[in-house]
């Protein structure tokens, strides 16, 4: 343990930490770009991820390439850190012809099989039972991979949360349940969502429940790493209550001033990016110059990619009716002929 800690402070960790920080910055930059584009009418809708960067990147750092993510609509930082091209995210937001899902899903519902990121559904928490099934498949095939499933604090009240947690525990599956506890489910604060701390819920299922500082990417990485190691070693699932804060509105259609005062503002001490910067500089992994360079590169990348993706034409209307089944049914074929 001691040895491990020593190793961590060594210079060899530097590239990994810099990469984590860069992903957080890229995600934040993209977030702000999309929100402002939405205000200009260039994007239909978006669920910002601001405030949850450190949490997601911390988890992603602990994952291996072939591990599976059954995530939700706020997982952009994790996707970017995993290496999903930024275009995949922008094209999905635009719903253009280059979008993986051919513009079929509303913005924030990503898919990337190449990076083992399962397509996102809207109904909250219904990815949890799927994660248990996916983990069962991994275990059955004797693969050493794990499944990460993410969801919000609101999701913990659903029947699917209970079903997924219980099944993963009963079958001792390699799943890590990451509750991205950002304090709010649209307008409902977590104190009104449940009468216990979310981590406590784990004990009802016979799995460890841990609280993690989701605003500190290194703390988050360590917590996730332990849970993921356990899952990989066949010890079964863990629930992580990852404490963070939804710094933005629930979505671009939401006005949080109706129900709360923002507690974490951008650039403040509590901002996970500011915390990340402090961590890096205190370890001598980065100085202001490097941080500045990372920020500038992110802006350049986001601006360039966003503009390029915006020029991509909309999908062929026919694609709106394909992939319902592997082969189109005669009924749909008939309707499509009438429509197109």
């Amino acid at each position: 343990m001691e040895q491990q800690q020593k190793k961590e402070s060594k210079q060899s960790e530097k590239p990994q930490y810099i990469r984590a920080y860069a992903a957080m910055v890229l995600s934040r930059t993209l977030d702000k770009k999309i929100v402002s584009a939405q205000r200009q009418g260039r994007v239909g809708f978006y669920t910002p991820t601001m405030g949850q960067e450190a949490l997601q990147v911390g988890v992603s750092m602990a994952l291996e390439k072939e591990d599976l993510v059954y995530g939700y609509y706020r997982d952009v930082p994790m996707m970017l850190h995993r290496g999903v091209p930024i275009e995949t995210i922008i094209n999905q937001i635009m719903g253009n012809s280059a979008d993986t899902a051919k513009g079929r899903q509303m913005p924030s519902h990503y898919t990337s099989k190449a990076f083992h990121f399962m397509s996102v559904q809207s109904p909250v928490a219904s990815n949890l039972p799927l994660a248990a099934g996916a983990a069962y498949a991994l275990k059955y095939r004797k693969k050493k991979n794990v499944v990460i499933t993410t969801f919000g604090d609101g999701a913990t009240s659903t029947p699917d949360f209970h079903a997924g947690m219980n099944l993963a525990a009963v079958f001792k599956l390699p799943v890590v349940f990451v509750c991205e506890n950002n304090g709010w489910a649209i307008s409902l604060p977590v104190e009104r969502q449940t009468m216990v701390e979310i981590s406590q819920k784990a004990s009802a299922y016979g799995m460890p429940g841990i609280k993690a500082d989701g605003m500190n990417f290194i703390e988050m990485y360590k917590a996730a790493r332990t849970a993921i190691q356990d899952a990989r070693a066949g010890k079964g699932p863990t629930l992580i209550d990852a404490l963070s804060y939804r710094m933005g509105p629930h979505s671009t259609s939401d006005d949080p001033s109706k129900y709360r005062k923002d507690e974490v503002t951008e650039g403040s001490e509590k901002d996970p990016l500011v915390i990340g910067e402090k961590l890096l500089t205190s370890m001598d992994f980065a100085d202001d110059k490097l941080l500045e360079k990372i920020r500038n590169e992110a802006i350049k990348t986001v601006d360039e990619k966003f503009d390029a993706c915006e020029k991509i034409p909309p999908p062929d209307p026919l694609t709106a009716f394909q992939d319902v089944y592997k082969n189109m049914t005669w009924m749909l074929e008939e309707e499509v002929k009438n429509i197109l």
Partner: protein
Amino acid sequence: MTSKTMNMVQALNSALDNLMASDDRVILLGEDIGTDGGVFRVTEGLLAKYGPERVLDTPLVEVGIVGMAIGMAVQGLRPIPEIQFQDFIYTAMDQIINQMAKIRFRSGGEYDCPMVLRTPYGAGVKGGLYHSQSGESYFAHTAGLTVVTPSNPYDAKGLLVSSSQGDDPVIFLEPKRLYRALKQEVPEDIYKIPIGKAEVVQSGDDLTIITYGSMVPTVMETVKKNQINAEVLDLRTLVPVDRDAIMHSVQKTGRVVIVHEAPRTGGFGGEISAMITERGIDFLYAPILRVTGPDSPVPYRMEEYYVPNEKRILNAVNKVMESA
């Protein structure tokens, strides 16, 4: 190919056995399906033969059984979950409608969900409100689902094999009243009956009776006993329904009676009726009549008044024959 006399339960069991033997991706999961062999015994003996990794006795949670099976399918397995009674499937409807049915579409075809959700449905075993429902329309109304319902042991096996070896999710509705009602010679080896193909159970000239699942034997008994020269179609698959078989027969007879056990309003009979009038109203000599369950829950004691019977079918047949 050797065959054996089997009832529907045995035929389904044989199908599951063949599927599991030929493909290690096939996994069964559900309540009481392992040690107990299922409350209707469809999975009897399979736990002993294939072990607990492939036959999972799950906790009591339909939404979890279906959701977990979907995750398995997405990750390359071929799960066949069982819902003990169709009446209890409703807590899993979100998983069925919003996950299972939409995975291929919403992922741009990157992911798929090949699985069969088996469940016994229908009245006739004195199960009352909550062990008797026929909910096929709920599933037929959801794009992305294939809906299959066999009416005899031979079809049950062949259709289950096809369903499991297909590319997309299938709702497989087993008419529980017929589980042990009749026996047939059924091959012991694996074979398929194509999805989307109806069967002409009896050919005839005077009218077409379109039915499926639990009502097929009742229709056949009525037709035989009363020497009705009817063409009887067993749809076998509701989605995608066999348009050509239906239109071919309607063109020949010009008179149609549709028989199903589910309630009339919003029932699948309405869909078939609309389909026929849309493309063949000129063939018709008489209005299309439906004989269905009433728009009421299935009662416990007076069940025989609920399920369409000889008398009601005969009434409808006579009525369409009277029209000029």
